């Protein structure tokens, strides 16, 4: 008898909260271990931050090329119930018997009918006019979409969603004589009568993989983010550099090809003045990678990185940092104090601390290496179940060295950046560790050795 044939009710199951790379990996591992998993993702697609990235450091693998197969595996795995556009509303109970209430937000699109063709978005009267929130939007606010959308073409599930903050009908109660999207949809999937639904699942263990918030660079007003269009974040740069992004991988700002680029490290990291004391651990290498991409795609461009310290501690990181400098990227030590406008261009004002002199570096593109911060939205259920947070705001592990996936609550495990900033390899390793811890407790609850099925098998091809 295969594990899949066991009736659900009798089987201990897991809940994974968050569908980024951490949640995806944890869900796949637990499911491969033979247990039922419910994966809940707040946004319209799984994939998380990793899906937004162009290349990954230091190997320069295409991020979505290595992520997409895993996303597809999640959607096809017989042991995984995927609930996107859903939020955990309430958790009660204890290890072995958690009752979880999940709020399924209305997509206003029938999931069983939508084929993901996109005719609705083409027809939407706001097509090309909705920018969304740069901090959460897939294209980081540098491209506009319709009020009905999939976050990106490889979205899982490939089902359209109506943006309730943008849709003319949902915000103003009327969209004209007829619904353009409804008329365009040949599958009859658009359904404005949908409403929020609450569903309950019963699980034995929970893996939290809620990730991080990107630092809002407007909190450093001296850099003029949101004021100067030439000042962007590293996340926006990823979307500019991505071949599948709005500029098809061309690094352009309003049709202008930048010639003088300045990257600024540690924006929203290591900064007590805004209560973000931690190093975000990824920005040094993210900038090195982006400087490399800029060098690659903008021949002749002057590329300067302004930094306080370079932290290239991971496997292959220092070698990559060496490589980028060899390419001619100029690293200058100094934490810039402000950006001001001078004519058409911007001037980054800093002290080059090695020269001991004030310098003004002209730039037509400034990239702020925005750090990670604890997710604010995770507060709700975390407080409800009294999940401890550390002083830095991230979920607190049982032991900083020996038990980094165990949370303050038995049966609740932490995976990835919800416990603290991590890069992708560390996140995946952490998620696998969380899955392992969850599997141990699930196996114990079943009271018999777990029947292992298909570890590493790809369900996408089954």
């Amino acid at each position: 008898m295969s594990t899949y044939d066991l009736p659900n009710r009798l089987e201990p199951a897991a809940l994974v909260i968050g569908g980024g790379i951490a949640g995806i990996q944890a869900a796949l591992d637990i499911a491969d271990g033979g247990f039922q998993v419910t994966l809940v993702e707040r946004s319209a697609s799984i994939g998380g931050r990793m899906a937004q990235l162009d290349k990954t450091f230091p190997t320069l693998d295409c991020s979505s090329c290595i992520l997409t197969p895993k996303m597809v595996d999640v959607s096809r795995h017989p042991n995984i119930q995927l609930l996107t556009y859903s939020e955990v509303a309430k958790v009660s109970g204890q290890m072995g018997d958690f009752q979880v209430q999940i709020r399924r937000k209305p997509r206003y699109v029938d999931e069983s009918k939508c084929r993901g063709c996109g005719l609705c978005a083409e027809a939407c009267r706001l097509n090309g006019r909705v920018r969304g929130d740069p901090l959460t939007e897939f294209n980081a606010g540098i491209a506009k979409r319709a009020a009905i959308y999939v976050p990106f073409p490889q979205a899982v599930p490939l089902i359209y969603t109506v943006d309730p903050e943008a849709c003319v009908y949902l915000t103003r109660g009327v969209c004209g004589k007829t619904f353009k999207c409804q008329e365009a949809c040949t599958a009859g999937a658009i359904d404005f009568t949908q409403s929020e639904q609450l569903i309950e699942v019963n699980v034995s263990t929970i893996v939290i993989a809620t990730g991080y918030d990107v630092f809002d660079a407007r909190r450093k007003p001296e850099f003029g983010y949101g004021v100067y269009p030439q000042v962007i974040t590293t996340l926006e740069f990823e979307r500019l550099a991505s071949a599948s992004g709005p500029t098809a991988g061309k690094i352009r700002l309003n049709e202008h090809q930048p010639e003088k680029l300045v990257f600024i490290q540690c924006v929203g990291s290591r900064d007590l003045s805004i209560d973000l004391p931690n190093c975000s651990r990824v920005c040094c290498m993210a900038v090195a990678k982006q400087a490399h991409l800029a060098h690659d795609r903008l021949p002749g461009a002057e590329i300067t990185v302004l930094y306080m310290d370079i932290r290239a501690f991971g496997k292959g990181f220092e070698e990559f940092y060496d490589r980028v400098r060899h390419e001619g990227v100029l690293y200058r030590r100094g934490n810039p104090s402000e950006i001001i406008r001078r004519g058409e261009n911007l001037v980054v004002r800093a002290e080059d601390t090695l020269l001991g002199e004030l310098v003004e570096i002209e730039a037509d593109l400034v990239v702020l290496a925005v750090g990670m911060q604890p997710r604010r939205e995770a507060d709700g259920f975390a407080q409800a179940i009294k999940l401890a947070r550390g002083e830095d705001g991230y979920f607190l592990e049982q032991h900083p060295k020996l038990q980094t996936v165990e949370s303050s609550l038995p049966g609740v495990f932490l995976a990835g950046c919800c416990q603290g900033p991590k890069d992708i390899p560390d996140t995946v390793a952490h998620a696998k560790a969380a899955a392992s811890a969850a599997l141990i407790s699930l196996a114990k609850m079943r009271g018999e050795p777990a029947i292992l099925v298909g570890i590493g098998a790809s369900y996408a091809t089954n």
Partner: protein
Amino acid sequence: MLQIESRQFATTHNLFACIQCGKCTGGCPMAVKTTLNPRNLIYRLLVAGNGYDLEGREELWDCTTCATCSSRCPKLVNPMEAVIALRGAFVEKGRVHPNVKTALESTFRHGNPLSMPREERVRWASDLSIKPFGEGVEYLFFVGCTPSYDPRVQQVARSLVKLVQHANLDFGFLAEEESCCGSEIRRLGEAGLFEMIVEENQEMLKAMSVDKMFTTSPHCFNAFKNDYPQNGVQVEHYTQLLSRALENGWLKFSGRFEKTVTFHDPCYLGKHNGIYDEPRQVLTGIPGLKLVEMDRSREKSLCCEGGGGRMWLEGSNPGTRLARWRIQEALDTGAQVLATACPFCLLTLEEALKHQNAEDKLRVMDIAEIADQVL
């Protein structure tokens, strides 16, 4: 030799927290034109062992205490306060510029740093029928030294009185009994005299049962709010009071001010106290007025170079006062009026305007003066 115990100093002033990132110096408006380098100064104090000689470090007197360094430091070090404390070493030995000596002595003797007699403190208000502050009066109007004595800034105080009277607010002042708040005294490094001033003013506020007060100057406002020990008195800058008066409908403007105006954020309102919106709320509440912003505004505002005792000290590079650059920035916006809300800013900017020969293109006015014109 002007030796200080640098180890103790570094500990007291949290200098060991410094990671030498250079953010302080990169934004320091004086570092652009003098040898003042807060980051380098901190490093020298840290590596000096236990003795650091301040001899020849005249650039310490260049600091305008604008708080750009302290407001941006990622490690919560306060280079500005370190500079103020180092000035103290000069003051202790009596090694100060004659102008500083005069300001300190005058404050000690006459209750103002301007060498003016106490009796003349109230002359500006002789025709305004302001009642003396007493029991039961709602607000104390703390006028300040420069608005009391400087003929140009007296106009601001007069306008402010008219505005507050128009808003029907119950207020009084201390007349000849008012003494310097000590803000600049503290920043010139005279900690002892400042302590004395605080004690006397605290006693006075207590004896008069002051609950609420407002000031003309952001410097007085900041001193009472942040330098004085907590005393339960609610202190506001006048732009906060006027903004509230407008919001609540106590103050109404009947005239129009058909001019384009740009606003220069005083350091002691903005960077020191985060008050950026209220002055702008008053300006945009004036009918006809069009507000435009300079590139360097709010948190990025360029200091006028009038703070930290610099009203009475030229500093090591007198040639290019920051106020002159500021005038140019204001001219670049195309504004007809450069508004501010600080006596020192008003004076330094107006002087720079004359120097630039741009008086036909731009006027420098205090917000209170503009508002008074549309009553």
